[in-house]
Structure formats: C-alpha cells, structure tokens
C-alpha cells in the first residue's frame, strides 16, 4: 500500500481504530504509527471522533477482586525499570561489542586508540536571529536521533515545533517528529528517515498544531532552517 496517499492512510487508521483489521495488519499499522507522525495523528483523530460511542455505554462496576490483582501485578514489576529502553540496551551491546573489538585490535597491534562517540552532532537548531533551542545528534549508524533542549521553548499548548529533513535532491520534506519542550528525547528512525537524514544537507523546524502536521508536510511557518554538520 502507498502510505503517501493520505486518504488511504486515513481509511486504514479508521479501520484500525474501529477494530476491523486482522492481527497482522493491526501490528503493521501500529509499527507505521511509530514511524510516521501523520499515521499516529490520523489514528488519534479517529480515536477521538469515535470516543463518545465508547463513553455512551452504561458504566459497570468491576468485581472487588480486580483491583487487588492489579496492585499485586504492579508491585512485582516495580522492582525493574518500567520503560525498557531498547536503544539504551542496544547501545550497551554496541559498547560491549566495541570493547571486544578494541581488545582484538590491541592484540593484533593495529590500533592504539579507539574512541567511538555515542552521539554525532547533526545540527544546532536556532532561529536566524535567536538563541539555540535544540541540539540534534545522531547515532553512528544514523538509526537513532537524540534531541536536547538548550533554551526556553515557548509556544502555546495548541501548537508544537516539528522537525523536518530537507532532502538533498528533489522531494518533499520528511518529518522527524515533534521537538520536545524541555529535557531530551531519543527517537528511533525508520530506514527511509535514516537514509534521507544521512544524505540531507539541511533540517528545518516548522510550527504545527499540537499533534504535528495533519498532512505530513509542513503546514505552519518554517522558523528554522540550518545546515547539517558533515563529519570530515
């Protein structure tokens, strides 16, 4: 299916939310939502549209034994971190693999210094006449990005900042998702996003509705366009 056709994507989102997709198609659409912000937007809009149908049902009190079971279940999971961070885990493996490579390299005497930076700089996102707002970095293979907030990000709750790759050749901007208002955020890229980011020369930031661009292309004013740092 061509996911670039918004009306098809919207139909798929509607059928997912209603519950009409089969198991595999459901899982595929869920993965798509992790990769494409406008797929997630389409899904959430359908969830919102149909929510009154769920809330119109007369409430039903659960049995007294349900809550104690939930309480026991969460008590037994609280000892381990709640959100398993796969990227962090993968980096750990990467570090372990790198460490063993260093050991091998040292043994054969071919390498004396090994330094593998965890994140490589991509761009400092700053408006033309303003202070830097975010630092954008990527993992060595480009499969993940890391965004750190540098300055005070001010915007109404109804709006958001969305990050875009401007492809080096012909083609439309491709979203890298919404930018955080504070703190930092790591995001895994799809293969398409990864390839585009590695080849691109510029990234941009636009102002969009709170849930991001509804069309998959920038719809609000573009407030930042900056070049991508090239490794020498």
């Amino acid at each position: 299916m061509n996911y670039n056709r918004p009306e098809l994507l919207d139909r798929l989102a509607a059928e997912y939310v209603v519950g009409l997709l089969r198991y595999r198609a459901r899982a595929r659409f869920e993965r798509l939502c992790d990769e494409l912000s406008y797929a997630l937007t389409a899904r959430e809009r359908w969830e919102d549209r149909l929510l009154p149908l769920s809330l119109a049902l007369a409430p039903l009190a659960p049995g007294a034994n349900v809550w104690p079971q939930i309480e026991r279940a969460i008590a037994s999971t609280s000892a381990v971190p709640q959100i398993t961070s796969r990227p962090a885990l993968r980096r750990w493996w990467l570090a372990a693999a790198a460490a063993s490579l260093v050991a091998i390299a040292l043994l054969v005497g071919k390498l004396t210094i090994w330094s593998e930076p965890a994140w490589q700089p991509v761009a400092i996102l700053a408006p033309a006449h303003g202070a830097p707002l975010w630092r954008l970095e990527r993992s060595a293979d480009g499969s993940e990005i890391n965004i750190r907030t540098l300055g005070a990000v001010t915007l109404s709750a109804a709006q958001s900042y969305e990050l875009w790759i401007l492809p080096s050749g012909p083609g439309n901007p491709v979203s890298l998702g919404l930018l955080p208002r504070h703190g930092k955020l790591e995001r895994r890229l799809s293969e398409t996003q990864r390839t585009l980011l590695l080849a691109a020369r510029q990234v941009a930031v636009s102002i969009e509705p709170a849930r991001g661009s509804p069309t998959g292309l920038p719809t609000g004013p573009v407030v930042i366009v900056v070049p991508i740092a090239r490794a020498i």
Partner: protein
Amino acid sequence: MAREPDGDELDDLLLRCARQDAEALQSLYRRTAPRLLAILMRILGTRTAAEDALQDAFIRIWQQAGQYDRIKGRAMAWMVAIARNRAIDLQRAGRPMVLLGAAELAQAEQFRVEGPADNLEFTASHDALRRCLELLSSGQRQCLLLAYQRGLTHERIAPLIGQPLGTIKSWIRRGLQSLRACLEP
C-alpha cells in the same frame, strides 16, 4: 477535539503514574474502571474475560504512562484505546464469544447519549456524533456500531445482518467517510 470530562485530573494522575505513584493508579482505576469495563464487556461478552482484560489494561496503563503525551490532553481516549486494543487482541486470539440475540441486534442500532452532562463541550461532541450517525443509512449505522462497540470483523457482521460480505465492507467504508465529512465539514 473537545476537552474530555475530568481531562486535567486524569492527565495529572497519568503523570503521577509515570513517576511510579501507585496511589495515582488506584485513583485512576476508581474513576475510569467502570467505563472501561462496560467497553470490554461489549467486546468480550463475559464478565470473567472482560475483568481479565481490565486487569491487563491497567497494567499496560501503568507501564506505558511514561509514553502518554500530556500536551495532547486526551487521557480518556488514550486509556480507552489501550483497553479496546487489549480486548480486540484477546477476541481475535479466539476467546469464545457470546452470540447476539435479536433484541441485542436491534439495540446495536441505537446510540443513546448518557454522557457527562457537567461538561458542555464534551456533551457537544456526543451530540455531534449522534447527529452525524443519524445521517447514515440504518445499515451503515448498524454495521459501524457492531464493528466498533462489539469489536466484530466484516466476516462476523455479514451473517448477523444477512448481507453479502462485499455489501458490509462498502457500507462500513462509506459510513466512515460520511462520518468524517459530517464531523469535519
């Protein structure tokens, strides 16, 4: 999207769950479990299956609270989606389902607003959806409600309504298109 009833309070409770505050989860449970159980009962058919799914849903809500985006302010929609997805997965995995009687089928065509009257904006979104559902043909409306509220697939709806599969598919597709156009002219 109109603001949800108790939206801010539910947002705060989810934020506290993300910080592993178990009391917040209990408050969330007290406020939302009866509504979620009603949804699960419709899809799974028996109280035992629905209560199992409710338990799973709250464990997921607890585990995924860190991923909830407070800025979007749609706590109830987020929790309902988690509960419905769990129920649909369980139902597709082959849990036995109670068959619908004729009275229940007739009931599936109705859409009553029993929403929270204290939240005018949200009642407005109930009213808008009801008005738009009324514009659909009765077949389209019945199929959509059976699919959404009962979690039935096209294949299961066709024999219940007594229409060929292709008809059911096109009714639902056109019904969804009309709903969207009506809700967002």
